[in-house]
């Protein structure tokens, strides 16, 4: 029954968008706007839960279930692009359809569930907005939900692409929500600029996605995802590699992987709930999701898999290093997000797709929680984001502090919080593959993962210490304004904290639970994504020792942070300009933006100027020359108009005679 309502899941938020977008600013009260927006998402969530529960009992035919094929429900709504058939008779028509299987089930639950919490949180966070802005914000959020759900549920690549572009649009709209505000005073970047940057960077990736899609259409003759995946084996390695790499380029853009990650830190220009929803929990994971969704294709392309692994590992490590030196509370979280996304990609790259999704889910919980907590802090600090002007907030914001601490422990990988299990699943996957392949390079990847885990623990602890511990460093005046956020904001925090604490238990590694607590997420997903099963071979380290090493490194990170930032009084922060060497490099984010500016944008600008010059001089010149030639010809031709009737009549008569001659010849 609920499965039949699958189409409502994206449609309800979309209806909310229309209602709020068209009427909200003028006719609806704040309360009504909030009610509409939240109710739409809640309804989606409810339907999602119902549909997922029903999916368990659903099987197209018993035979399929017995054969081990995944439980999948596909709903085709209408023929979108009727393109007829090929000469061979293959159907080229693109249909608008949604499909629900375990992978998308996990995603819609995460998206609608966390989305709903963030919606509720936003009511409190955006209370100071004018009514029109309030309605606009919620209509954008609802639009985002609709698009994200379209992306997740889409049964064919074009539908996914619509959602893909839609979330990009919403990201742009929401990053630039305060389009009249300055985001970064030093670089003169406005919020609108940040939104543009995100959008354009995403577009670069989208080109890859689009090309990959078209390549698959050419090769497979269909755009239906399941059909493509079913034919993946027959496509050949070359096509698979090319398509996978192109799709991965899209994923890189959306999921902020090297080299297209630069937009995500700047995306913090948007309101904090947006950062939580879009740039931490949901949209940025779309790349990971699509990669997992197309897992059978990737499996056919080892080179692509390797690329994913390398890029993911590099991104994870790189962003983590930068994260250790950020002073802005949201920037730290942003680099953390990039790093964690790299982790997920890394997992996907080694074939541990279910681990990737697992981490995606847990990350959604604790990173949303971190962002919302940061939002609560910023809310309390009246917009202040520099962690060096905070400190000692533990007393003033007890609830926020508690939930934030849970999140920090979760992301730092301390058991039994969620992050521990998911991170361990990934590291175990890498290690297993390394053992199977006997590749030292993969061991290095594992080492990078472990190092990243340590760095993550380090900077998260640093963040926690600088914000909540120690003595207050904010001005006297700001100290009086400190207050705990209203319940409408704190309650989502509590719910998320619960999630961050316990979500890990759905994926307890088998050697730990020994059956009592099976890794049933992997079991659940196994029908949809290829599970990684190292059948045999050398394993360098035992799972136990590997887990211990990772845990030790994390604890070491925490300890190091404690040692550096737990002292009191805290030394004043070193300004970026004064720092030397590696520290400076980190503080300046490895000069990546500057490098991109010099290596890509400057030549590009030069090319633009050259093109403009070419356009003005050559193209316009040609047009002008044509005009001038016409003019000249007209000047000459006009001499024919002598004003003498006899001349005209003569020409007329001459023409008549000539025509007659040819007619009668």
């Amino acid at each position: 029954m609920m499965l039949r309502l699958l189409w409502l899941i994206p449609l309800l938020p979309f209806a909310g968008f229309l209602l709020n977008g068209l009427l909200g600013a003028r006719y609806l009260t704040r309360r009504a706007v909030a009610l509409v927006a939240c109710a739409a998402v809640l309804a989606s969530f409810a339907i999602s839960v119902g549909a997922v529960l029903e999916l368990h009992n659903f099987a197209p035919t018993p035979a399929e279930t017995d054969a081990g094929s995944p439980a999948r429900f596909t709903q085709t709504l209408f023929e979108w692009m009727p393109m007829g058939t090929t000469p061979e008779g293959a159907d080229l028509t693109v249909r608008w359809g949604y499909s629900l299987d375990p992978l998308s089930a996990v995603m819609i639950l995460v998206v609608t569930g966390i989305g709903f919490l963030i919606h509720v949180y936003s009511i409190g966070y955006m209370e100071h907005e004018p009514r029109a802005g309030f309605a606009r914000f919620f209509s954008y959020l609802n639009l985002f939900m609709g698009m994200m759900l379209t992306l997740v549920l889409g049964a064919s690549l074009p539908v996914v692409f619509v959602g893909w572009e839609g979330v990009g649009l919403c990201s742009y709209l929401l990053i630039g929500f305060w389009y009249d505000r300055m985001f970064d005073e030093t670089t003169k970047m406005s919020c609108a600029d940040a939104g543009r940057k995100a959008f354009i960077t995403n577009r670069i990736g989208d080109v890859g996605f689009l090309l990959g899609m078209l390549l698959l259409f050419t090769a497979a003759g269909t755009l239906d995802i399941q059909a493509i995946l079913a034919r993946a084996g027959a496509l050949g390695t070359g096509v698979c590699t090319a398509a996978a790499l192109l799709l991965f380029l899209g994923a890189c853009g959306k999921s902020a992987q090297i080299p297209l990650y630069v937009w995500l830190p700047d995306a913090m220009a948007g309101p904090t709930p947006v950062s939580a929803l879009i740039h931490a929990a949901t949209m940025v994971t779309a790349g990971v999701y699509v990669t997992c969704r197309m897992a059978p294709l990737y499996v056919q392309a080892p080179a692509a898999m390797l690329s994913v692994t390398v890029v993911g590992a590099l991104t994870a490590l790189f962003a983590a290093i930068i994260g250790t030196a950020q002073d802005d509370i949201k920037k730290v979280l942003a680099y953390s997000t990039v790093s964690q996304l790299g982790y997920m990609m890394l997992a996907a790259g080694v074939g541990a797709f279910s681990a990737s999704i697992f981490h995606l889910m847990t990350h959604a919980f604790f990173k949303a929680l971190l962002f919302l907590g940061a939002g609560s802090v910023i809310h309390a600090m009246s917009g202040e984001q520099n962690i060096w002007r905070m400190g000692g907030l533990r007393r003033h914001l007890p609830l926020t502090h508690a939930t934030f601490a849970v999140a920090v422990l979760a992301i730092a990988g301390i058991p039994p919080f969620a992050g521990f299990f998911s991170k361990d699943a990934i590291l175990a996957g890498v290690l297993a593959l390394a053992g199977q392949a006997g590749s030292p390079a993969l061991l290095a990847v594992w080492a990078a993962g472990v190092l990243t885990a340590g760095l993550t623990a380090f900077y998260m602890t640093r963040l926690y210490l600088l914000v909540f511990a120690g003595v207050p460093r904010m001005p006297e005046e700001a100290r009086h304004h400190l207050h705990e956020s209203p319940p409408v904001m704190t309650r989502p925090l509590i719910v998320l904290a619960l999630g961050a604490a316990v979500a890990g238990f759905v994926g307890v590694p088998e050697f730990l639970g020994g059956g009592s607590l099976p890794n049933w997420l992997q079991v659940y997903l196994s029908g949809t994504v290829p599970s990684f099963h190292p059948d045999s071979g050398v394993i360098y380290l035992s799972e136990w020792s590997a887990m211990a090493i990772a845990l030790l490194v994390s604890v070491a990170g925490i300890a190091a942070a404690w040692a550096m930032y737990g002292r009191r009084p805290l030394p004043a922060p070193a300004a970026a300009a004064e720092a030397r060497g590696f520290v400076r490099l980190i503080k300046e984010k490895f000069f990546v933006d500057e490098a991109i500016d010099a290596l890509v944008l400057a030549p590009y600008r030069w090319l633009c100027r050259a093109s403009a010059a070419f356009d003005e001089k050559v193209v316009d010149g040609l047009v002008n020359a044509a005009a001038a030639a016409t003019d000249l010809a007209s000047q000459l031709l006009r001499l024919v108009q002598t004003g003498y009737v006899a001349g005209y009549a003569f020409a007329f008569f001459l023409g008549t005679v000539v025509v007659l001659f040819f007619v009668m010849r």
Partner: protein
Amino acid sequence: MVLLLGLIAVVAVFALARTFVPARTVPVGAALGAVMVALVAYDHQELASLEFWSGLIGFVAIMSALLVVIHPNPMVSVLFLILNLFCIALFFLILNAQFLAVIQVIIYAGAIMVLFVFVVMLLNLKAEEGLRLGGGPQRSGAVVLGVAFAALMFYAIRNRGAAPYFEPESFDSGFGTARGIGRLLFTRYQFAFEAASILLIAAMIGAVVLAKRKLR
């Protein structure tokens, strides 16, 4: 025979046109009359034939047309045009278009040409100076073109499909009468007829507006 008569007609028309002095006209006219009488005496059958008269009228028509073009005095041109119109009216008669013949005289000769005479009188035009054939490349070119056109026309008419040889007696008695034209005009060509009336009104207003010295 026809050729001979034509030659005489040419001479006659030239005599009439160029030497309109009575002293010279009288002997020429007398000679012409004498030749005519001689011809009647020689071959009266020929004189009664349609071909003979058609040829004669045709030569007069051509000559008068030529004189319209050649003669420097506009008034003389008008007069020769009237003569030409009469010739064409006679052709109409030969072609059994009796109504057209009369209409030709009434409208063309009686109305349109009067207008020309009127304007020539009103403007008191003098003979055009420096009018001579072969003056300037355009004029010679025009004559060459005219010859070419005429040659093309001759070629076209010569090569057209076989046409019936008409017998005047075989015609329907209603052909060419006012009744016949009226019947067509008020049935099949009703719209064109009404349109023509509008055209005439428009032309009338236009002419008044153009020619009036000051519109009050």
